[in-house]
Every structure is written in structure tokens, then in C-alpha cells.
């Protein structure tokens, strides 16, 4: 698994203790140890092949670590994540590894069944679990615990009724366009997330192209190996030098496979933050929605109060259908007016409660969300810095290999 992720989690662990409660990772070791192919019948009774992942847990509290394990499909991880998204809208929920291979350079398989893809996905799923388990808030979630330990977790998750609680996309979209006074920090954050998404996808695309080209350069050198070998057969003095130089050329050509495989880990780290950006945007959207609901409630209240005023004063300033009909069909009776005022009063009382509630909800959300966002920012800065440095380490390793191969080749050529 990714060494840098483990490192991250050690740091997260330290931070964990300072936050509310102590996080799950303190008490329990978690890993996604294996992946296996299975076949079975799906919902429409068709045969399908899918992959399952083995989640191993081991409670570290006490003297006897109790190990446990169960198998989960990718779709179950998705279900868990959706549950977390709905249940903790003020948290930047860690992303899952990609569903399908994207940003592939040509030699890398885009097939979901490809063993390399499955392996990288295994690592990504483990990373997801570790991130949740080290989060100050998410780690204490019961459903998460059940997911890790209980085969029948699905019943529990559906019992929470989270599906009903999820916001409709239309509502969220509406809110984005109609909110009047979003919190400035959230607007900026949303803008930042857009930029992060855009730049990381661009980076991943270009990196894949660079990888492709690098592959080409290295592999063509393999032809030197072949020709040198053939040529050495007809030479006396140059034969040995050519033959051994040829071997080094073959080694050079072969070395690119490992180099690029390592780089995929770097790409995965970038991808994680590409997907994290989406999670941040989700939090911003939630804020917009809450803000929008508050604004709507306030507007409603304000208009109701206005109506009350007008009704009490006898003037009709606000347009209402009832008002028009009463104009057309005659004035209403004092009893009717009394009744209307009473209704309005009730509505205003309710409205005020709603506004208070919504205001509180908004403030709570902003407070909690911003706390997590600060935590996320620190994590992001740390992780990405580590990723960039590990990228440099990879480049250094590649250069050292290159130096070695060509130094050896030079020696062989000198002996020709």
C-alpha cells in the first residue's frame, strides 16, 4: 500500500486525539488485504463477473487483538459513501477510487478486470477506509463500524432512511442560481474547488501523454539490443563490446515499465484530490441550499408581515387573488378579514420559528463545515506536498537508473 498514505494517517492519528472523541483508527487496524474475482447472478438474473475486496480488521485495544474479515464489492463502498454524504453534509467526505480507469496512457489497461487496475483500486479502497477511520467526526459513525465488521450492514444503512434525506439535484441547482447572500468564504472555496478540479484533470491528462512518449523513447532502444546482437556475430574485435552493450540497451528498454508503474501511484494521489474537489463542492452546494432556504423563509415571513400590515390598515398594496376577487365581487365582511388576520398571525409565528431554525441551521452548518474545511486544507497541503516530493524521488530514481545503464553501455562501447 502507499507508504505516504500510511504516513498521513499516522499524522491524522495524532491530530485525532486532539479532536472530539478519539478516532477509530486508534482502536482498530484496518486494511483491504485482497481482491478476488467472483461470478454470480445479478439483479436481472444475468451472469456477471465482479471483484470483491477483503476488509480485514483487528481490534487493538486490550491484549488480545481480535481479527475479523469480510468481503465487499465496490458498489457497497459506494453505498457507504452516499450514506456519509447525506448524513454529514458539512464534512468533506473522502472520495472513492475511480469507478473506471481514466487518464490512461496507451499501455495501461482501461479494463476494470485488469489485475493492475484491481490492485490500484484495492489500495484506493483501503485509503478511503483509513481516511474515514481517522476522521474526527466520521470515525465514530455506527454504520461505518458495521460496514467494517458486520455482514448484514445493508439493512442497518437502509433503516437510517438516509435515502429520503438526500437533497434533490434540482433543488441544489436551483439554490446555486438563486442564493443572494452566500457566505463569501464559501463562494471563494467553490471557486477554488473548480480551479483545483480543472488543473488536476489537466495535469493528469498531460502526465499521461508524457508517460506515453517516455515509454516510446525507452522501448525503441530495445531495437539497439537486437541489432547489436546480430552485428556482434560478424565482428571479431567489436563483438564482445557490442554484445554486452546490447544487453544494457535491452535492460534500459525494460526499465521503463517499473518507472511508469510507480508513477501511476503519483497519478492516483492527484486523482484523489481531483475527487476531493468534488466533495468540497458538495459542501459548498449544501451551504448554498441552506442559505437559499433561509432566504426563502425570510422572504416568506417578510411578505406575510406585509400582508398583515396591509390587511390591518385596509389598504391593498400587495397583489393577491383574493384581493382582486373581493374588489370585483365586493368587499369582504369584517368577519372574513378577522379570520384572515388570524391565519396570517399563525403563519407569521410559524414563519418566525422557521426563520430562527433555519438561521441556526445555517450558522451551525457554517461553523461545523468551516472547521472541517480547515482540517481538509491542512491535510491537502500536507498530502500534495508529500506527493510532489515523492514525484521528485521517482524522477531521481529514474535518473539514477539511466546513469547506471548508460555508464555501463559506455564501458562496453569503449571496449569495442
Amino acid at each position, binding site marked *: 500500500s502507499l507508504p505516504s498514505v500510511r504516513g498521513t494517517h499516522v499524522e491524522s492519528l495524532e491530530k485525532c486525539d486532539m479532536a472530539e472523541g478519539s478516532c477509530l483508527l486508534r482502536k482498530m487496524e484496518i486494511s483491504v488485504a485482497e481482491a478476488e474475482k467472483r461470478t454470480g447472478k445479478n439483479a436481472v438474473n444475468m451472469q456477471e463477473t465482479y471483484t470483491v475486496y477483503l476488509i480485514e480488521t483487528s481490534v487493538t485495544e486490550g491484549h488480545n487483538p481480535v481479527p475479523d474479515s469480510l468481503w465487499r464489492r465496490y458498489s457497497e463502498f459506494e453505498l457507504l459513501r452516499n450514506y456519509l454524504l447525506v448524513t454529514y453534509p458539512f464534512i468533506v467526505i473522502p472520495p472513492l477510487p475511480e469507478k473506471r480507469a481514466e487518464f490512461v496512457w496507451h499501455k495501461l489497461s482501461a479494463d476494470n478486470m485488469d489485475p493492475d487496475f484491481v490492485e490500484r483500486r484495492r489500495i484506493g479502497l483501503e485509503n478511503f477506509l483509513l481516511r474515514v477511520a481517522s476522521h474526527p467526526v466520521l470515525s465514530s459513525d455506527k454504520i461505518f463500524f458495521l460496514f467494517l465488521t458486520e455482514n448484514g450492514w445493508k439493512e442497518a444503512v437502509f433503516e437510517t432512511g438516509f435515502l429520503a434525506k438526500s437533497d434533490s439535484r434540482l433543488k441544489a441547482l436551483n439554490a446555486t442560481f438563486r442564493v443572494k447572500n452566500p457566505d463569501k468564504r464559501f463562494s471563494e472555496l467553490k471557486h477554488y474547488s473548480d480551479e483545483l478540479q480543472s488543473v488536476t484533470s489537466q*495535469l493528469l491528462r498531460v502526465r499521461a501523454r508524457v508517460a506515453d512518449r517516455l515509454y516510446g523513447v525507452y522501448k525503441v532502444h530495445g531495437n*539497439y539490443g537486437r541489432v547489436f546482437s546480430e*552485428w556482434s556475430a560478424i565482428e571479431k574485435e567489436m563483438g564482445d563490446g557490442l554484445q554486452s552493450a546490447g544487453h544494457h540497451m535491452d535492460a534500459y528498454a525494460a526499465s521503463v515499465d517499473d518507472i511508469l508503474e510507480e508513477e501511476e501511484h503519483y497519478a492516483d494521489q492527484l486523482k484523489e484530490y481531483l475527487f476531493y474537489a468534488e466533495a468540497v463542492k458538495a459542501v459548498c452546494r449544501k451551504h448554498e441550499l441552506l442559505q437559499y432556504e433561509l432566504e426563502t423563509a425570510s422572504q416568506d415571513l417578510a411578505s406575510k408581515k406585509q400582508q398583515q400590515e396591509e390587511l390591518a390598515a385596509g389598504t391593498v398594496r400587495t397583489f393577491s387573488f383574493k384581493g382582486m376577487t373581493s374588489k370585483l365581487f365586493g368587499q369582504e365582511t369584517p368577519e372574513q378579514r378577522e379570520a384572515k388576520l388570524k391565519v396570517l398571525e399563525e403563519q407569521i409565528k410559524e414563519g418566525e420559528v422557521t426563520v430562527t431554525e433555519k438561521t441556526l441551521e445555517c450558522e451551525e452548518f457554517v461553523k461545523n463545515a468551516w472547521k472541517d474545511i480547515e482540517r481538509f486544507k491542512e491535510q491537502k497541503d500536507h498530502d500534495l506536498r508529500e506527493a*510532489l516530493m515523492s514525484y521528485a524521488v521517482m524522477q531521481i530514481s529514474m535518473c*539514477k537508473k539511466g546513469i547506471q545503464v548508460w*555508464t555501463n553501455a559506455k564501458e562496453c562501447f569503449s571496449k569495442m
Partner: protein
Amino acid sequence: MSGMSADPAQALPAVMSPLSGQMLELDEDDDLEVFSKDMNLMDGSPMNASMPTSPASMINQYKFEEETDAKDIFVTVDNPESHVTALETFITYRVVTKTTRSEFDSCEYEVRRRYQDFLWLKERLEEGHPTLIMHPLPEKFVMKGMVERFNDDFIETRQKALHKFLNRVADHPILSCHEDFKIFLTAQAWELTSHKKQGPGFLSRMGDTVRAVAASVRGVRNRPEEFTAMLEYVDSFGQKMISLDKVTQRIVKEQKEYLGELKEYGPVYTLWSGSEEELVEPLKGVASCIDRCCKATEEQIGHLSENLVPLLHEYVLCTDSVKAVLRRRDNIQAESEAKNDALANRKADREALKDSKDLGFVLGSFLGKKPEEAKQQKEQRLDSEINELKEEVERLEDKVECANNALKGDWLRWQGNMRSDIKAAFVSTAEKNVDYYEKCLAVWESFLTSQTAAHDMESNSGHSS
């Protein structure tokens, strides 16, 4: 006799020429090393009084000292200039000669020559020494790609190839003494033109061509094994050169495409740094590393294009040269064989005359000639023809011997040059690649160090952990 085996790639044993003592006296060098490791023109046979004293074979007998010590002529080709006339546009190159050789009136010359002049020189040298191996001239036209004749890269490549060609001639102990070489280096433009016109006339050149074609059609009968081995080797070698040429050009192409993508890669990190706060330094750092690696890659591509690519291409052309030399040798031998055949025929005729079976006399007698007289006449005629042919045969056999010796000697020299050229080019390429990776290594290591240092500073200055 020398232990010359059929394998031309085997080095000749060191042989001290009996004449080298004489050469040492004439030469003022203190260095007494006589053995020339890449040029052994003697085939090792003892001085033979029956060896004809043609200028070429005389020179064959002299051993020259190691060229690096005795190098007394330096030639450079540079400074291409374009000339426009009403009829054509062409390029001339400046040819500068510095020499201490006594055949030259002055010790420094500067002339301008165009490609045609080089071509003329090559033809003259080939005529004079058909079985010596010369380094090839750059091609007349470039087939592949859309290279204009007067594109800068094309001119530079051509100039370097011309420089090498001329230098190889200058380094060659025999070729560099050819009269036309001297004229090429020293004559003014109009002098050269008039000298060119004095060359063998059109008709005599036609005659040579006809003879050559006839000889090649006839084919050689008993080619010595060592020359067949040479041909086989050159064939294989040529194929390898073509392959290597292709591979190397492909590498250049892939490198260029890699560079193209790399150039777009760095800027994305810079773009990213614009939306970050804490990450600005590392992002910009990575961008800068990538940019510097781009520069290193550009240099590497340049080196490959200017060194290995042209060198391999030259050796593709070389194999054609060598094959032509082998063909010419074959033709010389074929000519000699043909003459031998003719001599044999005449001798057979002469024998036949003794038996008086020639019906021609019968015919002659009808025309009033006395049979005895006619027979005598014919005898005399045949005898004189046979004598003439004997001389011819001897001349041609010597010619074959000279040609073979020249080729054998030059073959080793060519092999030596090839080995050192190829070795140098590949060593240089490997060095450049090491250099490239070392540059990139330094770039990334310094980034890592600066990042670690910055991080250490941060953690020391603020956080309580």
C-alpha cells in the same frame, strides 16, 4: 608470405618493412615507432625484383609512420556561402589547407569549392586507385523528408561530411599524394575549371566504361576466398548500418515528441500554483525542474542528431563505396582472366596450325596463294599476336596483384577507421546520455533538498508537535 587468412577482420601480424630504415633517415621525427597500427600496406612478401615498378606499387612498399606523429597536412571545410547566377544557385565551401609537405609551394592555402568539385576529385581518385577505399561523399540529393537543398541543417550536415571526406583523403598515405588532390586544394577557381577540362577525354572515358561493363557482365571466375568473405561481411554490415540508422532516427523522433509533451507539462504546475497558498513553492519548484529537464532533453536530441545520426548514415554510404571497390577489383580480375583466355585461344590456334587442319589454306589456294606461304604468314601473325598478348597478360596480372594488395591494405585501414569512428560515436552518445541524466538528477535533488529544508524550517519555527 603473410598469414593472410580468409577472414578479413583478423588483424595482420606486425611486420617490419625492410625499407622502413630508409624512411627513418628521411624523416626527422625522434619517435621511432614504425609499426602503424591501422595502415599496413605491405602484404608481408619480401621485396620481389619482378614486382613492377608502377608508382602505386612503389608507394605500396613504403611504410609510413603513425599518422598522428607524421601528420603534415591539415584541411578544413567551412564557411558555406550561397552564390546566385542567372542559371543556378549553388553553395561554395571554404577549403583551408595548412601543410609542410614539400610538394606544396606554400604552406597555407584557401580556396572555395562547390559540391561538384568534390565529386570530380572523388572520381579522379577512384580512377587512379580503383581499389582503395574512400570515405563517402554526402549524397547529392536528400530523398527522404522535405529537406530543401539550401536549408541550414542540410548545409551544415553536408559541410561536415565534406570536411570528413577531405580529411580522410588527407590522412590516406596514398590518396593524399595524388596530383588532383593537390590541385583541388590549391588551384584558383578558373585554374581548376581548365584543369578539369584536360582530364581524360570523353571517348577514352567511354572506352573505360565499356570495358568495365563488359568485365562485369563477364563476371570473375576464381575470386579469392578472402574477397568473397569481404563481400559477405560488407553485405551484412551494410544491413546492420541501415537498421541502426533507422533505429537512431526513430529515437530522435520519439525524443522530440516526448519533449513536445514535456513542454506542456511544466506550465500546468505553474498554473496550479496560482490557486494555492501553501503549495506555491513546491508547485513552482516542480514546474521549474520540468523546464530545466526540457532544456537538457533538447541538448540531448541535438547531440544525437549531430553526431550519431550522420555517422551511421555515413557508414550506410560507406558500404556502397566498399561494394563498388570490390566490384572494381572483380572487374580488374575479370579483365585479366579474359586476356588469359584470349592468349590460351591463340596458343591453341598456333598448335592447330602445326597439324595443318586449317581449311583456310584450302580457300587461300583457290585464290592463288601458295598454301605454304599462307601458312607461314598465319604462323607469323599468330606468333606476334601471342607475344603481344603475353605482355598484356603480364601487365594485367600485375594490375590484379596491385589492386589486390591495395585493397587488402586499405581494408584493414578501413576496418580500423570504422571501429574507431563507431566506437567514438557510441561512446560519445552514451556519455551525453549520462550527462543528460546527471543534469536532471541534480535538478530534482536540489528541489528535494530545498523542500526538505523549507519544511524543517517551518516545523522548527512554529508547530508544537
